[in-house]
């Protein structure tokens, strides 16, 4: 019996060359993916191993100094990359360093879920991301550290200055016409999602070995407090002579959505062509217009296809 042998406690993550501190408790879940073995008489009588994965999930702490680097690492996928493999030939490891002096190294990782971003005054900007860890490439499975390597490792806290943590109110403009050029949202702000679908590359010989980018879509959601019912229907442009009607390209009723911090150097989101998708009218005490969704569509400027979205910082 020991009074002290009860390991637990916080940790930080090193991945993509970044030291990432999490806002809340976080996890690394390891799982053996399995295939069923059935018989007609008895149903499932066993399983065989397909591959082993670990999924690390957490909400990163964003500071003014590391926001751009975090965006580059956590939201790597764009529509221009469709068809590409996400894992390079040289494995990208991830290391968890615990406060109680252990390091846990996963040899081969990729971002499997890009985090949502919330642009709101009193909310952390990054939502939860997911980092998937595969077995190192080792056909003979002779290395015991193929999946994870646990070692003693002295802890040193990474630098953190709470004064630079990103907390800021944001302005929201959809196009340049009032009242949409100055939308005021409720306290939940604007939630931005950039969803990348990845398809597994799974040779029979090695199990899951990589992922291929299948699609990338983006959308923004918010509840506008300063719009009325007539604004709502203007927003949806359901009866616009040019843009509305069966077969009309939805991008015709899109505008640029710009969400930016009131502070220079803090986050800014631009969706060049944000198209209203849906939203409710509410008859309650909260807001006449409920949470609306705008989807990011593509448009070309002088023949050049524009980015689906851009995430940066406010310059001035």
């Amino acid at each position, binding site marked *: 019996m020991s009074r002290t042998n009860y390991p637990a406690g916080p940790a930080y993550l090193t991945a993509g*060359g*970044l*030291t990432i501190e999490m806002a809340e408790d976080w996890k690394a879940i390891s799982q053996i993916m399995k295939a069923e073995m059935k018989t007609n008489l008895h149903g499932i009588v066993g399983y065989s191993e397909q591959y082993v994965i670990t999924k690390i999930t957490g909400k990163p702490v964003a500071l003014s100094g590391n926001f751009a680097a975090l965006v580059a690492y956590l939201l790597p996928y764009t529509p221009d990359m469709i068809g590409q493999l996400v894992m390079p030939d040289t*494995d990208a490891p991830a290391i968890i360093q615990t406060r109680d002096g252990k390091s846990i*190294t996963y*040899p081969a990782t990729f971002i499997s879920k890009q985090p949502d971003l919330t642009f709101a005054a009193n909310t952390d900007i990054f939502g939860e991301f997911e980092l998937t860890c595969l077995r190192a490439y080792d056909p003979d499975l002779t290395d015991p550290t193929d999946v994870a390597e646990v070692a003693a490792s002295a802890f040193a806290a990474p630098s953190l200055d709470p004064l630079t943590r990103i907390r800021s109110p944001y302005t929201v403009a959809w196009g340049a016409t009032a009242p949409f050029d100055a939308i005021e949202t409720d306290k939940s702000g604007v939630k931005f999602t950039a969803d990348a679908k990845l398809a597994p590359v799974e040779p029979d010989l090695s199990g899951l070995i990589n992922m291929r980018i299948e699609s990338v879509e983006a959308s923004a959601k918010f509840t506008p407090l300063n719009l009325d019912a007539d604004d709502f229907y203007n927003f949806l442009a359901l009866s616009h002579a040019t843009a509305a009607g069966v077969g009309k390209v939805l991008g015709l009723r899109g505008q640029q959505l710009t969400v930016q911090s009131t502070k220079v150097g803090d986050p800014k989101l631009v969706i060049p062509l944000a198209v209203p998708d849906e939203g409710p009218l509410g008859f309650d005490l909260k807001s006449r217009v409920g949470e609306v969704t705008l989807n990011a569509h593509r448009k070309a400027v002088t023949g050049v296809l524009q980015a689906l979205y851009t995430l940066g910082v406010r310059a001035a």
Partner: protein
Amino acid sequence: MAKLDKQTLKTAVDSALAQAGDELNETAARMAYEMRRDKLAFDLFAESRRPGAKGNRISLNEAKAIADEKLKPSGDRLEAGSSHTLEA
């Protein structure tokens, strides 16, 4: 206890803000250095684990120590993305 007049209070707050600004700049500089150091350390760490790499695998703490050595004497001249190789 004597009451502070508004001007004295304003001066005290301005002074505290100026000090906080200096500290913030120092912390920002340290964080920027650590980001470069950690990027280099991560590259060294990953390189040591590459199949066929020369030498033993190194820990992240060892990689950070090597990166510190590489960065500090040169006045932080290493650029992100530079290539690095481990000694055998």
